[in-house]
C-alpha cells in the first residue's frame, strides 16, 4: 500500500495538474468549498422564506425542501448533467455540473439547519426588535441572523463534511476528483483493488475525522460563548 502511495501520490493529490486538468484531492476540496460557499447565501434566503410571515412564500419554500429531501443527490446530478447543456446549447465541464447539483442540494439542507437555529432563538428577541420599530427584514438582518449563524456554526461545518463526502458522487459523471483518481490508479494497477480502495478510504477518513474533531471543539466553544452571554445578561 505504501508503494502505491509513493508512486501515485501526485495523481491522487492534484490529478494531472501541471500537464492536464486539475483533479484528485485538490479538486474534491475545491468542489466542497465552492459548493458550500455558493450554497450559503441561497440557504439563508430559503431559511428566511421558511420562517417568513407570508404564507405563500413559506409554503413554496416548504415544498422545495420536501422535494429536495425526497430525492437522491444522484438524481440532481443527472438532471444537471442533461438539463444544463440542453438549456445553454453548449457542453459544460463536469465540474460545473457537479457544483450546480451540489449547490441546490446543500442549500436546502443548510436552510433546514439555519431554520432550526432561527426557531431555537427565544421569541422575546424578535418581539423586542419589532417593538423597537424595526421592520421584519431589519429584525432578521440585525438581530436574528447574526446570533443564529454563530449558534449553528458547528452544524454548518458538519454540513461541509457531508459535502466533502458527497463530492465522491462526481465519479459517476467522471468528474476528476479523488474517487475518480483512485479508480484510475486501480485500472493502472489492475491486480490490487483492495489496497487501492483501502487507501482511498483512509484518505477520506483522515480528512473528515480531523474536521469532525474541529466540529466538536467548535461546539464546545459556541456552547461556552452562549453560557457566558447568558450569565452576563442575568
Amino acid at each position, binding site marked *: 500500500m505504501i508503494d502505491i502511495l509513493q508512486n501515485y501520490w501526485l495523481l491522487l493529490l492534484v490529478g494531472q495538474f501541471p500537464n492536464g486538468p486539475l483533479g484528485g484531492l485538490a479538486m474534491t476540496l475545491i468542489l466542497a468549498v465552492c459548493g458550500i460557499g455558493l450554497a450559503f447565501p441561497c440557504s439563508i434566503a430559503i431559511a428566511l422564506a421558511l420562517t417568513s410571515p407570508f404564507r405563500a412564500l413559506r409554503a413554496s419554500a416548504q415544498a422545495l425542501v420536501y422535494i429536495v429531501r425526497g430525492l437522491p443527490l*444522484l438524481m440532481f446530478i443527472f438532471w444537471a448533467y442533461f438539463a444544463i447543456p440542453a438549456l445553454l446549447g453548449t457542453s459544460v465541464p463536469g465540474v460545473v455540473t457537479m457544483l450546480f447539483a451540489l449547490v441546490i442540494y446543500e442549500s436546502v439542507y443548510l436552510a433546514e439547519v439555519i431554520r432550526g437555529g432561527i426557531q431555537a432563538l427565544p421569541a422575546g428577541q424578535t418581539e423586542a426588535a419589532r417593538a423597537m420599530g424595526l421592520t421584519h427584514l431589519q429584525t432578521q438582518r440585525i438581530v436574528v441572523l447574526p446570533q443564529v449563524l454563530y449558534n449553528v456554526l458547528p452544524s454548518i461545518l458538519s454540513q461541509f463534511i457531508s459535502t466533502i*463526502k458527497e463530492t465522491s458522487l462526481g465519479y459517476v459523471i467522471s468528474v476528476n476528483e479523488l474517487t475518480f483518481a483512485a479508480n484510475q490508479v486501480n485500472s493502472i494497477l489492475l491486480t490490487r483493488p483492495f489496497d487501492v480502495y483501502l487507501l482511498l*478510504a483512509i484518505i477520506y477518513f483522515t480528512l473528515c475525522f480531523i474536521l469532525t474533531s474541529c466540529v466538536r471543539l467548535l461546539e464546545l466553544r459556541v456552547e461556552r460563548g452562549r453560557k457566558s452571554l447568558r450569565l452576563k445578561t442575568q
Partner: protein
Amino acid sequence: MGIVSTLELTLLAGCIAFVIGAVLAVVRASGSKLASGFVVVYVAYHRNIPLLVQILFWYFGITALLPAVIQSWLNQHGGGFLCGAIAIGLCMAAYVSEDLRSGMRAIPTGQYEAARAMGLSFMQTMRYIVIPQALRHAIASLVNEMLLLLKNTSLLMAIGVAELTYATRQIESQTFRTFEIFAFATLCYLAISFCIMFCGRALERHFRVAGR
C-alpha cells in the same frame, strides 16, 4: 423492474442496519471499555468515509480477497446486489446506533437501576425496559435514516446494480427520451420518499412519548 430492485435493496439494507445498529447501541451501553471502543471506531469509520467509497471497497476490494469459488458464485448470482446491500446496511447501522444511543440518553438512569434492582439481567433490562423506550424517542431520526437509506441505494448504480437510477440510465441510452424518463424516475423516488415520510409521521403520532 428498477423500482422493485430499489425497494428490495432498501428493505434488505434497512433490516441489516436496524439489527446491527441495535446490537451496536447495546454493546455501547454495556460499559465494557473494549467493546464500546470498538463501537466508537466502527461509527467513526462509517461516518467519515463517503458511502460510495465504502461500496467500491466492498465490491472491488473485499471480493478480491475472497477465494475464487465464492467470487465466481458472487459473479453469477449478482454479487453487486449483495455487496451493495451489505455496504449500505453496515454504514447505516452506524447512524442507527447513534440515534438509538441518543434515544437511550433520554431515559433516566433511575430506570436502569430500578430494573437491575428488581433482578433483571443486563440483557433483560435492555430488552424490556430500555430498547422499547429508546426506539420511541428515536423514531423521528430513524425515519430520517430510512429516507437516507432509500436515497443511498441510488449509489449502487456505480457498481452496476440494476436499481431505479441504473435502469433509468439504461432506458435513456436506448430511447434518448432523456427528460421523460428522468422525470418518471424523479417522481418514483418522490413517491417512495413521501410514503416513508408519511408513515414516519403516523408512527411518531402513534408512539408519542407521554409528556412531550
